[in-house]
């Protein structure tokens, strides 16, 4: 392993990712001799050594900024370009990309926003970013053939009670404190987004025929899907649905719920 190469790659990494630019990064640099960067990188009359490294520093930041703008369009719309730019500057210091795929660049943005000063003005922002990130995760999540009505019919009715179900891997249940879905929807429709109301909301994000959807869940359906994600049997799920209906026929309630899930493709046979 060439030790000089380790040193030069590490130096360039620090300079390219220096938050206030290459010059400021150079001022902090302890490892360079008095000859400075020009000892390492060849400059000329057209571009100095630092200006050449600066080309890479700009590409680093703006490539990631573009990716995050694309991945978090509603967060961007709420904040505006300048505040989003500053947010990304801080985010990349805290969470520099480590994965080989750039699509993971935004995986920690919601966590970063949770304690960010922007929270004072936009307390819903972490929830909004979390929903946006979930859409991406579900888009790329593993394939699996969901249980459909035809498959259910093919199972003998006496075997239904012990049938184990689970949630499709391309689904997420998000417990949010703000009802951010209308904000996301408005941005998707190219409308002016409004600030969401403070309202505990559970969102289901799922993929069906390779399209990603999201909708709010009520407390009952949230509990039922939680039961399914723990590997419950069909009988246990039916019991829970039946216990929740007051004046309606439990069979109708079970049927309706099952139809929604089968049509949405959110269930898998365990």
């Amino acid at each position: 392993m060439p030790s000089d190469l380790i040193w030069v790659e590490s130096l360039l990494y620090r300079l390219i990712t220096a938050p206030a630019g290459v010059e400021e990064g150079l001022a902090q640099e302890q490892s360079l001799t008095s000859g400075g960067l020009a000892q390492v990188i060849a400059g000329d009359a057209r571009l100095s050594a630092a200006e050449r490294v600066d080309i890479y520093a700009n590409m680093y930041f703006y490539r990631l900024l573009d990716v995050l703008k694309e991945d978090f369009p509603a967060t961007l719309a709420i904040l505006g370009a300048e505040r989003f730019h500053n947010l990304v500057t801080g985010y990349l210091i805290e969470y520099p990309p480590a994965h080989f795929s750039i699509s993971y660049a935004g995986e920690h943005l919601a966590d970063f926003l949770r304690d960010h000063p922007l929270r004072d003005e936009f307390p819903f922002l972490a929830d909004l970013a979390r929903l946006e990130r979930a859409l991406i995760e579900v888009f790329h999540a593993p394939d699996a053939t969901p249980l459909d009505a035809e498959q259910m019919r093919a199972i003998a009715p006496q075997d239904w009670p012990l049938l184990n179900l689970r949630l499709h891997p391309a689904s997420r249940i998000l417990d949010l404190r703000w009802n951010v879905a209308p904000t996301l929807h408005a941005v998707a429709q190219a409308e002016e987004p409004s600030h969401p109301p403070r309202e505990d909301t559970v969102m289901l994000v799922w993929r069906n025929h390779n399209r990603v959807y999201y909708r709010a869940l009520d407390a009952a359906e949230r509990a039922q899907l939680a039961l399914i994600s723990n590997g419950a049997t069909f009988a246990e799920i039916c019991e829970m649905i039946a216990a929740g209906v007051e004046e309606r026929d439990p069979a109708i309630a079970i049927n309706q719920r099952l139809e929604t899930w089968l049509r949405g493709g959110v269930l898998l046979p365990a």
Partner: protein
Amino acid sequence: MKREDFPFLGFGVGLRRDHYVHILENNPPVDWFEILAENFMVAGGRPLEVLDGIRARYPLVMHGVSMSIGSTDPVRRDYLHELKALARRVEPAWISDHLCWTGVGGRNLHDLLPLPYTREVVRHVAARIREVQDFLERPLLIENVSSYMAFNDSTLTEWEFLAEIAERADCGILLDINNIFVSAFNHRFDARTYIDAIPRERVIQFHLAGHSDHGTYLLDTHDHPVRDEVWDLYAHAVRRFGAVSALVEWDDNIPEFERLMETANRARAIHQSVQAEAPRDAVRSHLG
């Protein structure tokens, strides 16, 4: 590796998301596509569905941007596992990545950074290419990158560096004609000297793309048409290397698909016209 082990695919274009629907609905007459491997190194969903649909109709080549073959970090096994799994699915004509480093210390810059051109680095990179080729059980093509900085420690030219690594690693070369043009301007070398020094039997693919002019330097942006000077350089490369599969890349300000096809067809026309020169040259050389 032997050049004859690689098929001549003709004139292709880089597969980009903007064109998925158009390609699947219209089956445009393109010779082949190159995919960006990382875009399809996902667990499931729409990208893989598109990939399978396109693979069923066209030859594909896998082109990566994250192998970081010049890094001093260990070669990432998780990356190689996913790359190999994708190759099993795609059965590409070949796999390529860049002669560069993209990160260090477990961090990723998501950019293609140049290396010091020294014999020590030649040995380092060549050993890593061999490691990758052993793991993938197939030869790798390495691509020359555009660069904006050069190292005072370099003792070799870029073309010597590329050629020596390819020989030592016994790998193929993806020669990016635009990158040679861009780097020739940025570092003031002669692009034809570069092309003339690359071993003929190792060049398996060409890249063609546009760049942007920033006055003091050229930037490899893939957002413009291929410049006439790059077409001239391509013709020069075809004269030297003969029938090499060529591919048009366009990554930003992506035009309609027809525009990409026109560009691929221009590459074809230049190739054919250079090939037509060959007998005359041969006669001249015989008489001379």
